[in-house]
């Protein structure tokens, strides 16, 4: 037992992942768990003090699709701790394992050995639906339900949680205001009637609907045009600071990582090669770190980028959500 028990933690020596849905396989896989079970942490609501919120530790992980008996190594030697209220950015090239890591946290993927602890409890011991309803999830292109209005999309998790109708309506209104969509008749519109940036705002609002403590974001702004992307990054950065959620954010864009992260975790071929604050990160000499740093401006002027990260709210045109 640690002084600050983690809200989420993952540990394994060897892990195979299976896509969620093959229940029998998953159950068998769960038998192989050898990791440490942390004590369940009771956090008082509203507590914003940084404390371990999520940690992922382990050596080897494999992915296994249906019919694939070999399994493919997706992530390995993972050791990661994330504190409550902290924004951790998982940075890496395509196929580096960052999405895999993300999907472990809400049990979209399951380890076959080792463990992933959320609030001190292995994800495999959680009811997966309950677990996921307590974790906000935002993906690229938003993944909004095309047959639901904006309001119905945002109300999804509260309705799954069987909230009373007036409470849902009030919450939807509150969230639309939070993400800057309170003007006009956005609530009654369908996703196809929105711009890409507006859809992504709805995606964020939907993820926040049931006030989850953890937010998982998988390249949420990746499909937007550069101007809209910058706008949303800025606004989201401010929002994240205000909300104090534990955020795990996947991106391949270092600029985005510098803007949002309290800590940047760089993944390469399924391994963590760096886990630093943005300022420290840019000083690292690791080849993959340098490769990302060089991608910033077409030169390696890391200092300028670091300055931008320190004071994002001073950038022109920034509006809080």
């Amino acid at each position, binding site marked *: 037992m640690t002084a600050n028990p983690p809200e989420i933690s993952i540990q394994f020596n060897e892990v195979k992942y299976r896509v*969620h*849905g093959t229940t029998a396989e998953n159950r068998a896989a769960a038998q192989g768990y050898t990791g440490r079970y942390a004590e369940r942490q009771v956090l008082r609501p509203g507590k914003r003090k940084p404390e371990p919120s999520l940690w992922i530790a382990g050596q080897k992980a494999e992915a296994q699709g249906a019919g694939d008996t070999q399994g493919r190594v997706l992530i390995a030697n993972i050791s990661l701790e994330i504190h409550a209220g902290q924004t951790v950015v998982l940075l890496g090239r395509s196929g580096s394992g960052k999405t895999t890591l993300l999907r472990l946290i*809400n049990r*979209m993927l399951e380890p076959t050995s080792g463990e992933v602890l959320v609030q001190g409890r292995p994800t495999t011991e959680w009811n*997966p*639906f*309950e*677990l*996921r*309803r*307590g974790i906000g*999830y935002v*993906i*690229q*292109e*938003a*993944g*909004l*339900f*095309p*047959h639901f209005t904006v309001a119905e999309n945002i109300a*999804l*998790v509260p309705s*799954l949680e069987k909230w009373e109708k007036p409470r849902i309506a009030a919450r939807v209104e509150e969230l639309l205001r939070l993400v800057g969509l309170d003007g006009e008749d956005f609530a009654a519109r369908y996703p*196809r009637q929105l711009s890409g940036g507006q859809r992504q705002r709805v995606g964020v609002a*939907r993820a926040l609907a049931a006030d989850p403590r953890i937010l*998982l974001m998988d390249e949420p702004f990746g499909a937007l045009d550069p101007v809209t992307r910058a706008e949303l990054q800025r606004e989201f950065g401010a929002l994240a600071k205000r909300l104090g959620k534990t955020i795990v954010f996947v991106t391949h864009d270092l600029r985005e990582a510098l803007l949002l992260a309290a800590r940047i975790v760089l993944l390469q071929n399924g391994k963590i090669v760096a886990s630093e604050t943005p300022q420290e990160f840019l000083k690292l000499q690791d080849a993959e770190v340098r490769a990302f740093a060089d991608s910033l401006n077409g030169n390696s002027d890391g200092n300028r980028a670091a300055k931008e990260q320190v004071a994002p709210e001073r950038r022109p045109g920034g509006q809080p959500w």
Partner: protein
Amino acid sequence: MSAYTFFSTHRWEILSTTLEHLELVLISMAIAVAIAIPLGIFIVQRPGLRTVALGIASVFQTIPSLALFGFLIPIPFIGGIGKRTAVVALVLYALLPILRNTYVGLTGIDPAVLEAATAMGMTPGQVMWRVRLPLALSVILAGIRTATVITIGVATIAAAIGAGGLGTFIFRGVAMVSDAVILAGAIPAALLALLADGLLALLERRLRVS
């Protein structure tokens, strides 16, 4: 005898035969929908069963309709001469379009939408009822539309095994070498098919989510 005089002197017979035809179609379609849609939902997550189910449905579709009626006649309980045999054959014919479209509709959904649904904590049942089915509805309906038009056509042949319907006029007209009698069966059957197609197309467009 001109077609017009035949139509006016036999209008009540034509009307009742049309209704009989419609009854045959509606009963067959109701049964086919009741089998094919649940089956389609069932096979979405079961690849092994999917191949078998779609394969069997395709086989029935391949057998010429008159031959299928012929095959069914000697089979006990479901066979014999009359309406029951006809309904069995028509159901077998209607299965494939509905089953295939149900399957295609349920599986052709944007993976990002399904991922979001799962990640937000929907159970597989909720994903099916609240996401997959509503989004697949127009595709499923397109299958029902195809099946209905096929069934209206094939049902005319059912008259050959004593099931009644508009085929009665056609077969009788051929035997009598009378265009008027043939048309008394052919025209209502064609109109019925066009009407059903139009109405279902309208409904399909209203249900489409783009």
